[in-house]
């Protein structure tokens, strides 16, 4: 009965280290539920039993203190405190030491997105792991404080800018689990939510092959969209025309943008490249110069892909451009 009720509390356990969290949780649950019911129940019984009979009645001074009973009561409380610490300690010690041979995955957190970098330099936006194979995450943040939470793995770790945090887990079930940023990271609306995909070894190996090249099997606009999602652009730039921290990407390509200094500029491949690498040089009117520069994080080929994707979002599409069109089609084509 208790176990059935408990099953509704914790999420499904799918990692080797879930037991060290769930065990103490369930035991503490039983102990504390019993204590709370006991204390509240006693109060209700006393209020009922010793209810005031007549208006002048007074309580029995000095009653209610029994040395042996009080001693037992305090021993029980002490035992609860000791149990709480002792039962949770082994799992905690384990969690600080990743096992030998764990797959190292680098995690970069920024508002709106996580990037997971696998050995060999492939970076993806969904965390993958193989059943039974421990994974150790080495995490850094590029802007504000973030957190990485995978409830099924009983994992929560804050990612603090300027520090490197580490956490590890061993998945035991092949499935897809929720993974999200669980620390408030601001007004930019989009909480980074992605997934942990646990596969058996063969599927995992096949997946590793497929992510080696983001351009393989994708058209340039598809690569652009992938980068938009992966690099965190979507936290500040919508594709539906709504205004967030930065301008929307809808119909942005090929239009004349008015800048903060009053001049106007044609949004072409050259302007887009400059705005990605040195975003605060030419800021559009109505916005603050707050964007993180992506210099060194995106190469020309990837920026070319983003430009191609932006064209597909614009009604100016491939028509409005003149010389700029030629320039950027060579940028896309020379690769």
């Amino acid at each position, binding site marked *: 009965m208790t176990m059935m009720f408990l099953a*509704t*509390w*914790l*999420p499904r356990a799918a990692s080797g280290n879930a037991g060290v*969290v769930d065990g103490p*949780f369930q035991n*503490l649950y039983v*102990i*504390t*539920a019993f204590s709370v019911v006991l*204390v509240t129940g*006693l*109060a209700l019984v*006393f*209020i009922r039993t*010793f209810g*005031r009979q007549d*208006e*002048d*009645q*007074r*309580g*029995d*001074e000095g*009653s*209610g203190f029994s040395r042996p009973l*009080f001693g037992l*009561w*305090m021993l*029980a409380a002490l035992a*609860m*405190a000791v149990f*709480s610490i002792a039962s*949770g*300690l082994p*799992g*905690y*010690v384990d*969690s*600080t030491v990743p096992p030998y041979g764990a797959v190292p995955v680098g995690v970069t957190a920024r508002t709106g997105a996580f990037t997971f970098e696998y050995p060999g330099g492939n970076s993806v936006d969904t965390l993958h792991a193989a059943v039974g194979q421990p994974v150790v995450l080495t995490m850094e943040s590029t802007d*504000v*404080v973030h957190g990485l*939470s995978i409830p*099924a793995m009983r994992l*929560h*770790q*804050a990612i*603090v*800018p*300027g520090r490197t*945090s580490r956490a590890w887990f061993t998945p035991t079930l092949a499935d897809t689990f929720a993974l999200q940023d*669980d*620390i*408030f990271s*601001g*007004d930019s*609306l989009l*909480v980074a*939510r992605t997934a942990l995909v646990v596969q058996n070894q063969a599927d995992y190996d096949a997946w590793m092959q497929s992510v080696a090249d983001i351009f393989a099997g994708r058209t340039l606009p598809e690569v652009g969209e992938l980068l938009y999602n992966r690099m965190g652009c979507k936290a500040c730039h919508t594709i539906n025309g709504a205004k967030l921290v930065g301008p929307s990407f809808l119909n942005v390509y090929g239009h004349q943008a008015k800048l903060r200094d009053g001049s106007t500029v044609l949004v072409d491949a050259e302007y887009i490249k400059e705005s990605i690498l040195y975003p605060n040089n030419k800021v559009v009117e109505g916005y603050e110069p*707050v964007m993180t520069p992506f210099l060194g994080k995106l190469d020309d080929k990837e920026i070319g892909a983003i430009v191609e994707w932006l064209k597909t979002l614009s009604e100016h599409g491939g028509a409005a451009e003149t010389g700029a069109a030629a320039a950027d089609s060579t940028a896309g084509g020379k690769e």
Partner: protein
Amino acid sequence: MSNGAVASARGYLAGPSGLGAWFSSRDHKRVGMMYLGWTMGVLLLGLLFQLLMVIRSVGGMGEDPAIIFRAITYDRLLLVFLFLAPVIPVTLGYFLLPLQIGARNMALPGLSIWSLRFYAAGLVFLLASYVFGAVACGWTLATPLSLTAPGSFTPLFLGLALVGLSWLQTGVNIILTVNTGRDEDMGFFDMPLMTWGVYLGGYLLAAMGILLAVIVLYLAAGRAVGHGPFGPGSDPLAWLGYFWFVTRPAAYFAVIPAVGVIFSVVEGISRKRTPGYRWVVGAMITLLAVGVSTWGIHLGPWGQAPQTTFVFSVLSVLVVIPAAVLGYFLLATLYRGAVACAAPTTFTVAFLLHAGIAVSISLFLASPAPGAYLGATMFATAQLNYILWGCVLAALLAGLNFWWPKMTGHTLNQAVGRFGGFLYLLGVNLMFIPQLILGARGVPADMGPFAEGATGLGETSGLGMLFLFFGLMTVVSNFIGSLVCDKPVADNPWGAEGREWLVSSPPPAGNFD
């Protein structure tokens, strides 16, 4: 003014009337009553923000989820800094403390009213910040987000600094009043337990109030000029360490006076002194010690060394010891008492239940492995909610129901009060038990009460909020209704002990003249 027969019939309320007269009054009773109005206003605002969250999230996060993030930020800031931490010392404390120790007024009557003015100004600044550019950076104001996020931060920081200074003034005033204002024949261990609770809370208010003002002003400087200990480039743990050092005890300096109030109320309704007076005082002092030494429990997953986190886990689990002492003697005071079946009794049961749950949650959060998993989830914020809505509010309402005849000279309807208390108890648990379950499932704290993964639990929690709301409305209308219906009230309607019951109801302006 207390000499005339007509005037003394209404005691301190009969003095000069009008808003100006009240807002410049140095009478501790008037200050306490005004604080009651202000803090109830803050509580209502907090409820409105919660309601906003519920409404906005019923159909998912809505078009602009930032509204929810902002509501959460201001909800917590208002409720923690303007309600939870100061509420019992500034309402029941100001009103009853001098009466209980046989003093004519607070030690520094001018400081009483100035603390209220600072509090009111702080509230106005906080609301101005909400109106003129609500910020959404979470109530912990974590750097670097609080340095770069858009929004009107200046009034927010100023408001918090003013509130901190208001705490400081209240704290100093309480400490001095108890140290110097007691009757000659009243030693420290003759003081009522509520006086002890408010006195100990006063030390925390004074110490943490000045610290809050200082760190918030440093943060403001960091944002404005880009320098300082919490400015750009500083380690986010620096700010968070100080923030929790100030805020973690806030829960305790709310709980210690709450414990004192509950003990005094229970002694009154069961007409029996507690059999372990010195144990209870000792437990309250131990709570204070635990309160100021456990801030690091919040920094565990933030990059604090695991060994340090373990030390803080051990320290914070010690809360069970004073809690067990208090629980034992609360029951022992009821045992073989002459227990009145009245509204304060219902709120006492609610307090006991909610305090038990809050202490239980401490065990989960202090246990190293489960604590690391649960620390950033709704499970942890449900504990704060249990302390705020469950313990401190229950103690406040028990105290108000108990001392209302003394404070106003009007009698409350006990049946209505008990019904309100029952709705309140039902509401709190219906509201927060689902949040505990959601938290255990991994729903993060402060992302809106019904973030993804809600399966009817969010709706249950919303329903609980309605019960809570109607419970509070019942209690408040009972208060207001009592003012309209004019039944004369005896000086000591409960047959309780204590100096406050020796004076007329309501007390004359000079208390013991």
